[in-house]
C-alpha cells in the first residue's frame, strides 16, 4: 500500500471523488494551474481540465456563493478557501444560506457542498495564517464540521463529506500536511462522519483533541505514562455532529477530562465539550474538566510555540487533573 502524507492523501481523495462522480468539481484561488498554495490540488487540472478544477477570482463569497448555486442544481462542488483565516468574506453565504437552505425549504432543496480549508498554527503564519475558527461553524445549525488528524482518516472522511448531502466544513491541519506519512489505499474508501476514535486507551484521564493537536495530546499522554498516569486519548475526527457517546463513556470510566484545541479558549469548542460532559457525567467527575487551548489573543508569530497548546502545556494539565 502506498505511503502518503496528508497533502497526498487529500489529493488522492479528491481525485477518487472526481473519477467516480462527474458532478464533483474543485474550485478556489490558485487551485488549478498552481495546484494550490499547499499543492493539495496538484495535478488535478491536468487530469480533469479547467472546467472541473477552477481557478477563481479573489472572492470567497463568490467561491462559496456560486458553489451553493451549483450544489442546488445537484452538483457536488468542493470549494477551497486558501487559509481558514480568509473564510470570513464567505461567512454570510455559509451561515445564512448553506446552513439554512434545507430547513427553509423543508428539504426540497439542499446543499451538498464541501468547503476545504487549511487551519491552525505551526508555519509561523502569524494572526492571519494560523486561525482555527471551527467554533463559529459548530455554533451554526445546519453545518457539519470535520477535522482529520492523519492521512488515512483525511481521505476517508473527505470522500464521505463529498458524498454527504449537507454542507461540510473540512478543516485541514496545515501543521500536519507534510509531517506525517502512513499507508493510504489508492482507491476510494470512506469513514463515516460523527465517529470519534480512541487512539490510546487509558483509565485515569480522558484527553480529547483533533487535527494537529492530537499528536500533542498523544505525546503528552505517553510522557505522563512514565509518571504512572494512564490517559485515554480521543480523536474526535468529526467535530459536529458530535460522537458524544464515545466521549461520555470514556469520562464515565476515567472521571476526568482534558480538552485541547488551538482556537482561543473563550467560546471555543472546548467550552461546549466541557459543558456537555459536565451535564451528562456530573456524578462521575472526580476533577474539574480542564481546557488547554490557544490564549484569548490574536494568534502571534514569534511566540507561536507558546501560544499553541503543545505537549509542554498539556502535560501539567493531565498531571494536575489526574492528581486532583
Amino acid at each position, binding site marked *: 500500500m502506498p505511503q502518503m502524507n496528508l497533502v497526498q492523501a487529500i489529493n488522492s481523495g479528491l481525485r477518487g471523488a472526481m473519477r467516480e462522480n462527474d458532478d464533483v*468539481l474543485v474550485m478556489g484561488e490558485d487551485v488549478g494551474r498552481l495546484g494550490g498554495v499547499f499543492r493539495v490540488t496538484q495535478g488535478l487540472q491536468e487530469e480533469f481540465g479547467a*472546467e472541473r478544477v477552477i481557478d*477563481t*477570482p479573489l*472572492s470567497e*463569497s*463568490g467561491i*462559496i*456563493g*456560486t*458553489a*451553493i*448555486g*451549483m*450544489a*442546488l*442544481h*445537484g*452538483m457536488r*462542488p468542493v470549494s477551497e478557501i486558501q487559509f481558514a483565516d480568509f473564510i470570513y*468574506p464567505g461567512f*454570510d*453565504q455559509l451561515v*445564512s*444560506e448553506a446552513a*439554512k*437552505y*434545507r*430547513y*427553509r*425549504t*423543508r*428539504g*426540497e*432543496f*439542499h446543499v451538498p457542498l464541501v468547503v476545504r480549508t487549511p487551519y491552525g498554527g505551526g508555519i509561523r503564519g502569524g494572526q492571519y495564517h494560523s486561525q482555527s475558527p471551527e467554533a463559529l461553524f459548530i455554533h451554526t*445549525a*445546519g453545518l*457539519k464540521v470535520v477535522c482529520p488528524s492523519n492521512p488515512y482518516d483525511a481521505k476517508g472522511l473527505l470522500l464521505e463529506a463529498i458524498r*454527504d*448531502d*449537507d454542507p461540510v466544513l473540512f478543516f485541514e491541519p496545515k501543521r500536519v500536511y507534510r509531517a506525517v506519512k502512513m499507508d493510504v489505499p489508492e482507491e476510494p474508501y470512506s469513514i463515516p462522519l*460523527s465517529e470519534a476514535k480512541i487512539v490510546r486507551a487509558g483509565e485515569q484521564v480522558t484527553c480529547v483533541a483533533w487535527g494537529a493537536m492530537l499528536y500533542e495530546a498523544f505525546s503528552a499522554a505517553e510522557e505522563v505514562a512514565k509518571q504512572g498516569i494512564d490517559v485515554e486519548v480521543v480523536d474526535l475526527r468529526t467535530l459536529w*455532529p*458530535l460522537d*458524544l*457517546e464515545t466521549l461520555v463513556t470514556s469520562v464515565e470510566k476515567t472521571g476526568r477530562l482534558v480538552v485541547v484545541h488551538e482556537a482561543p479558549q473563550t467560546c471555543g469548542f472546548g467550552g461546549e465539550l466541557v459543558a456537555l460532559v459536565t451535564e451528562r457525567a456530573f456524578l462521575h467527575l472526580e476533577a474539574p474538566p480542564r481546557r488547554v487551548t490557544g490564549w484569548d489573543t490574536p494568534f502571534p508569530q514569534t511566540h507561536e510555540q507558546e501560544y499553541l497548546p503543545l505537549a509542554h502545556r498539556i502535560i501539567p494539565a493531565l498531571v494536575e487533573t489526574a492528581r486532583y
Partner: protein
Amino acid sequence: MHIIREDGSLDPSLDPGLSIDRVVSLYKAMIRTRVVDDQLERLQRQGRIAFHVGSLGEEAAIIGSAAALRDQDWIVPCYREVGALLWRDYPLQRYVDHMFGNADDPVVGRQMPDHTFSREHRYLSVSAPIGTQLPHAVGLAWAAKKRGLGECVGVFFGDGATSSNDFHSAMNFAAVYQTPTVFLCRNNGYAISLPTARQTATRTLAEKAGAYGMPALRVDGNDVLAVWQAVREAAKRAYDGGGPTFVELMTYRLGGHSTSDDPRIYRSKEEVESWRRADPLVRLRKHLEQRDVWDHDLEADWRAACKAELKECVRRAEEKPAPELREMFTDVYKDQPRHLAEQESRCLGGPRAAEEEDHD
C-alpha cells in the same frame, strides 16, 4: 425604452408581436397579483397574518420578466416576486397557507410570510438577506452550462442589492465564466427609505454592468411589453452561449417597503401621485381597451373572480391547524442527528408557552 406609449398605443416599430391572448393573460396575471396584494395587506392590518411584502406598481417588471423565460429556465427570487411564481401556476392555496404559516405551509411555519420556493416550478427559495441569492443564480446557471442543459437563470433583486457584497462577486463570476444568467434589477426607486440616487453615484444602475464586462439593457419596467422584450433578448443571449446580461427595470414601489413600513416619512405625496399615473396596470388596460379585447365588465368580473378565489383560500387556510411542533426539529440535516432527536423529545415532552406569551 417604451413599447406601449403613455396613451396606451403601441409603438409599431418595437412591437414584439405577442399574440393578443398572451397580452391579455399578462394583464390578468398582473391584476391577480394586485388583488392578492391588496387582500393580504388588509389581512395583515387585521392581524390575521404577521407580515406581507407586496409588489404594488412592479407587476409589469415581475410578470413581464417571468413570461419572457421558458419553463425550463430557473427563477431566483428576491422577495417581491410571488407574481412570477403564480404566473408559473403555483397553487394560490399553497401560497396563502404559507402566508398563514399553517400545517399546509410548504415550509411549515419555519420562515416569515412571503418566503416561498418551489422546485417543481424551478423557483429557488426567498431569503431575507439582501443579495445572497445572486451568487446562487450564477452557480445554478454555471451548473446548467457545465451539464450541457439549455437552461438559463433569471434572478430578481432590487436597486439596494447592487451595493451588496454578493452583487459584486456574482456579477464578476457570471462575466468571467460567461454563465447563462439574466440579472433582473427592479429599480423601484428605493431601498426602504434610501432613494436610488443616494444608493450609488452613477446615473443609472445599468452602468454598473460595464465594470464586469457585461452587456446591459435598461427599460421602462412599467411597460410589460418592453420588459418582455428586453428579458427575452437577454435570455436568448444566454441560450446562445452569449453569457450574462444585466437588465435594469425602471419602476416604482407604489406601496410601503412592507407592511411594517410607513413611506410617508421619507417621500412626498406628489412623488407617489406622479408615479400612480404611470401605473403599469392602467397603461396596459388602456392598450387592451384600444384593441377591443378588454372593457369595464371584463375588468370587474376578473377582479371579482380573483378576490373570491383569494377569500376562499384564506377561509381554508384559517381553518387549518398550526404545523406540528416536531416540524421545528427536522430538515436541519438530511438525517436528524442524535442531539436534535434529544432536543425534540425534550421539547415535545415539556410544558408549552402560556398563550399570553404569544405576541400576535
